[in-house]
């Protein structure tokens, strides 16, 4: 049997293995060393690798990213940690104007093999400045890769690939997933960036999700199966590069799609998927592509309220039921 470990442990293993494999890999961020990371991902690494490879930085998000970038340019393979994605707002110039553009802007002379690990989302009632989901911003920036693992297995394999990638990667974890257990083999493996994963096969509808919403979608699929609706669940895993082929293949089969993410629906990444699907599968779709996402509101620092802001299993089930019956209704009408 494959052993089970937590998401945070899988991430730690990826860091540890990459640091062992490649002496150029190092970690820099706030409280990553002595504290072991705000979400305990880097626990124990300071003891193992010492303060030159697990670097506790002053509270200076911009220069944390900037310094990581500079080190990457001259030969390092830094993993910078931004404790909450909300604080990435303090480093946007370094991420967007510097790291993302560096290779292209400088005619290919420089490379930025840099991973920015951060976490986002709800789950702790942490409020409007500690719970945002901002992946859509980064996916919209040419030159950045955006990774959003949903399981311990993916977290480990994707982080290893991100570290080995020669481009800046926004590696966005989810604060609600750190304690999640899942199977992770002892043997070394990596997962390529840009390949979606079918987390559950199905025929009647495709649920497209990533990060924590994969689990919500899976739970909805389970529930739908009980009323005879077979849902395929696709975990995008990386938003950039985006594996639309897997999505297209699935929706070509199921003819119905729902995109689910925790970020606000309005202007969220789900729009990209929905827009793209209707462009490419206009004649195949049996129903409009539906989007489910967070309400367009600053997140309340209230655990009960924030739950009402983000999509639930019940909402997904409801939407899928509507899609199926609408279609039935249309079919009936045109018969």
């Amino acid at each position, binding site marked *: 049997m494959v052993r089970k470990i937590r998401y945070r442990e899988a991430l730690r293993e990826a860091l540890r293995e990459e640091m062992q494999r490649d002496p150029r890999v190092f970690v820099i961020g*706030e*409280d990553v*060393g*002595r*504290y072991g990371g*705000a979400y305990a991902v880097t626990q124990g690494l300071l003891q193992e690798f010492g303060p030159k490879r697990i670097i*506790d930085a*002053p*509270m*200076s*998000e*911009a220069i944390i990213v900037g310094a990581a970038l500079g080190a990457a340019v001259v030969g390092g393979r830094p993993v910078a940690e931004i404790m909450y994605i*909300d*604080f990435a*707002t*303090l480093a946007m110039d370094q991420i967007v104007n510097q790291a993302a553009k560096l290779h292209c802007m400088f005619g290919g002379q420089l490379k930025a093999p840099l991973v920015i690990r951060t976490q986002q989302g709800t789950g*702790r*009632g*942490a*409020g*409007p*400045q*500690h719970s945002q989901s901002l992946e859509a911003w980064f996916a919209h920036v040419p030159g950045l890769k955006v990774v959003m693992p949903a399981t311990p297995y993916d977290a480990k394999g994707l982080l290893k690939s991100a570290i080995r990638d020669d481009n800046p990667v926004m590696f966005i974890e989810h604060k609600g997933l750190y304690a999640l257990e899942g199977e992770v083999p002892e043997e070394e493996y990596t997962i390529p960036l840009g390949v979606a994963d079918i987390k559950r096969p199905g025929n009647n509808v495709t649920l497209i999700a990533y990060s924590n919403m994969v689990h919500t979608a899976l739970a909805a699929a389970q529930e739908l199966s009980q009323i005879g609706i077979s849902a395929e669940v696709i975990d995008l895993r990386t938003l950039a590069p985006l594996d639309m082929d897997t999505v297209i293949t699935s929706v070509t089969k199921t003819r119905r799609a729902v995109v689910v993410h925790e970020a606000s629906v309005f202007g969220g990444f789900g729009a990209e998927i929905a827009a793209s699907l209707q462009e490419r599968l206009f004649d195949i779709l049996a129903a409009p592509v539906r989007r489910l996402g967070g*309400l*367009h*509101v*600053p997140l*309340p*620092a*209230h*655990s*009960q*309220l924030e739950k*009402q*802001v983000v999509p639930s299993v019940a909402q997904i089930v409801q939407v899928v039921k509507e899609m199926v019956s609408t279609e039935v209704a249309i079919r009936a009408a045109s018969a």
Partner: protein
Amino acid sequence: MEDRETLTNLYHTMLLIRRTEEKILELLLQGKLASSMCHVSIGQEAVATGVCSAMQPHDYLTSTHRGHGHIIARGGDLRRIIAELLGRETGYCKGRGGSMHLVDVSLGHLGSNGIVGGHIGIATGAALWSSLQNDGRVTVAFFGEGAMTEGIFHEAANMAALWRLPIVFVCENNQYAMSLPWTHATAEHSFARKGEAYGMPGIEVDGQDVLAVRQVALQAIERARCGEGPTLIGAQTYRFLGHSRGDPSPYRDKEEETRQRARDPIRIYQEYLFREGVLTQTDVETIEAKVAEVIADAVRFAEESPSATLDSVLEDVFA
């Protein structure tokens, strides 16, 4: 020497902060807080108390993630504070802001903030408006020493000194930013030098001595009000507990903790008051009782209040 009433009030305020935060920790352990975010300032009460005592009613302040003390010292309504932490509609932010976003605009309290240093911008802007309007108000920006290495501190300090804005930058140096010791945050620890880089005075003060804090705050606020510009105050204090719940602070030296905890600002001040004959043991007990009653009332009020609702949040997205 200050008058008896002022001296007593300072003691009362410090005790109220301490006991309120102890109660908050209790509520937290009982799982009653609506949010997981909660940072107490136990050990640092003299800073909030001393500074706020030096402010005028029409002055402004902005506060931090560790801001219970600031709003209490400013005279905030304990009922609305506890209600906020319990996620009730009667709270300061209608139950949606929690511990990190306390605010009372009627007291000139312009909000606590979850982004370390984030509110320093708001403070600078309030002072800018006061300067443009010549309205005689002074703004106090509280922040931890962790905020001093954020870019926004630099931009704000520079702008404030350049335009001689009526603002006082109060750094509560509790020696740690989460696990990062101040000694590992910067190579230069002198607040005088840090202030001078912007052309403003930097003054260090024993943050465990409420009267000393009050004195430097009075001077800095006076200076600001007279149009002489900002001051950077470095109040040396200590975070008695962990950064937040579930932080046993293994990164701190236990001997250091013991030594620092021995300098409890409330005990130090109580001894002073006894020594000076300002208060007696009976007075102190009366104050304790009053404080306990106010807190009990606030908790009762909060627990009886209706929970926050999402509808109410949605109504407030835009003004």
